[in-house]
């Protein structure tokens, strides 16, 4: 049986670990609130944009923009992988990486793949892969994300798509479903899936039942051509926001579980400590009583 001193020092060290995990949990909670607020603040913009895009897409031809045209033969694929910079957030990053790995192994077999990594964890994984890393952005996910980052990286993707350097672009990110659930999600962002999909397949019907027939300036095709790249930026930005929120939620949960585990362990050790102490005292008493009996003798 462990000595009293050993048990005592173990209890102290676990209590310290618990302090750290519970502090990390509180940090994650407050960051989560910030990330969620940013996600909420983005919703009106994204919602309105989708609405306008939907109403204009209905009027334009399918071939309004080269971004809509799928390539006959897909040889080169770019994969944007959003992960966090830091660990200690449960299965968060490994879920995302497994998703990417599976996708590359099965769907992209025999194609040229390049990675664009947001977040250190994903980059470290991509480094070990035979495919090259095109671009990496560290210190973005989890913090305050500027729209400029999404639009500049999105513009790069669009440029290389138009030049023919890549034929398809995919995005892997963690969708924030709720506090307890974050889903690794795969999305194709270029070529832009058909316009029906963008609008969710439904025409935007106004409350009084007519489609707003906009006068467009410049022409609706031209406007659509300007809006589609923006739509790509919005998707990347949305992915970054959701991944950040998910990261904090995942870390909060992971740290909560760790704190609980620490408490359980401390409880167990405490009862071992008490038992050991008790049996030691009993032993000592026996000795004293025995000694006293012997003296009486």
């Amino acid at each position, binding site marked *: 049986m462990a000595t009293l001193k050993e048990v005592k020092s173990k209890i102290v060290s676990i209590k310290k670990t618990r302090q750290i995990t519970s502090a990390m949990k509180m940090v994650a909670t407050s960051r989560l609130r910030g990330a969620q607020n940013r996600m909420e*603040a983005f919703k009106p913009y994204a919602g309105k944009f989708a609405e306008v895009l939907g*109403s204009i897409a209905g009027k334009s031809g399918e071939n309004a923009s080269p971004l809509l045209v799928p390539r006959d033969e897909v040889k080169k694929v770019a994969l944007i992988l959003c992960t966090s910079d830091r660990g200690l957030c449960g299965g968060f990053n490994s879920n995302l990486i497994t998703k990417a790995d599976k996708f590359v192994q099965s769907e992209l077999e025999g194609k040229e793949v390049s990675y664009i990594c947001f977040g250190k964890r994903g980059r470290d994984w991509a480094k070990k892969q035979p495919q090259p890393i095109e671009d990496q952005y560290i210190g973005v996910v989890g913090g305050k994300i500027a729209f400029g980052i999404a*639009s500049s990286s999105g513009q790069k993707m669009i440029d290389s798509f138009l030049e023919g350097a890549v034929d398809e672009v995919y995005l892997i990110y963690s969708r924030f479903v709720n506090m307890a659930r974050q889903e690794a999600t795969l999305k194709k962002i270029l070529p832009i899936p058909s316009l029906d999909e963008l609008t969710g397949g439904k025409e935007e019907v106004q409350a009084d039942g007519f489609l707003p027939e906009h006068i467009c300036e410049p022409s609706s095709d031209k406007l659509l051509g300007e809006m589609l790249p923006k739509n790509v930026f919005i998707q990347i930005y949305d992915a970054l926001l959701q991944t950040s929120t998910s990261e904090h939620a995942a870390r909060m949960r992971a740290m909560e579980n760790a704190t609980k585990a620490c408490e359980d362990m401390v409880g167990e050790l405490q009862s071992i400590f008490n038992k050991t102490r008790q049996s030691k005292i009993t032993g000592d008493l026996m000795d004293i009583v025995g000694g006293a009996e012997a003296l009486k003798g």
Partner: protein
Amino acid sequence: MAEKLFLEVVTPQKSVVSEEVEIVVAPGSEGEFGALKGHTTFLTSLKLGTLRYKDSAGKERYVFINGGFAEVLPTKVTILAESAERRKDIDVERAVKAKERAEKRLASRSPETDLVRAEAALRRALHRIKIKDIR
């Protein structure tokens, strides 16, 4: 008393303006346009410039718009901009600094400067300063 229409200016970060106004004048890519209540539905892209509107108290307000889109409906105007700032929120010091930086970059004419970006930065800075100097 003019009838009111609702103006909303939203950016990815936040909603900048959301209030009842009398008139909106916005910098459309094919020319500045004004909208009053009852305007026909209208959709346009915007260029960098100043959005002006008269709020319900009849006071003129100015908002810096860095490109985007505007949707005009009979009772509502929605502006989608990548960035937008009300006149009172414009950071002049920052704009002056950005202006100097951009001018320096343009003057240096070294091959590695991104002329397009520097010019865009200069235009943004000048416009911000201009809005601040109104009146």
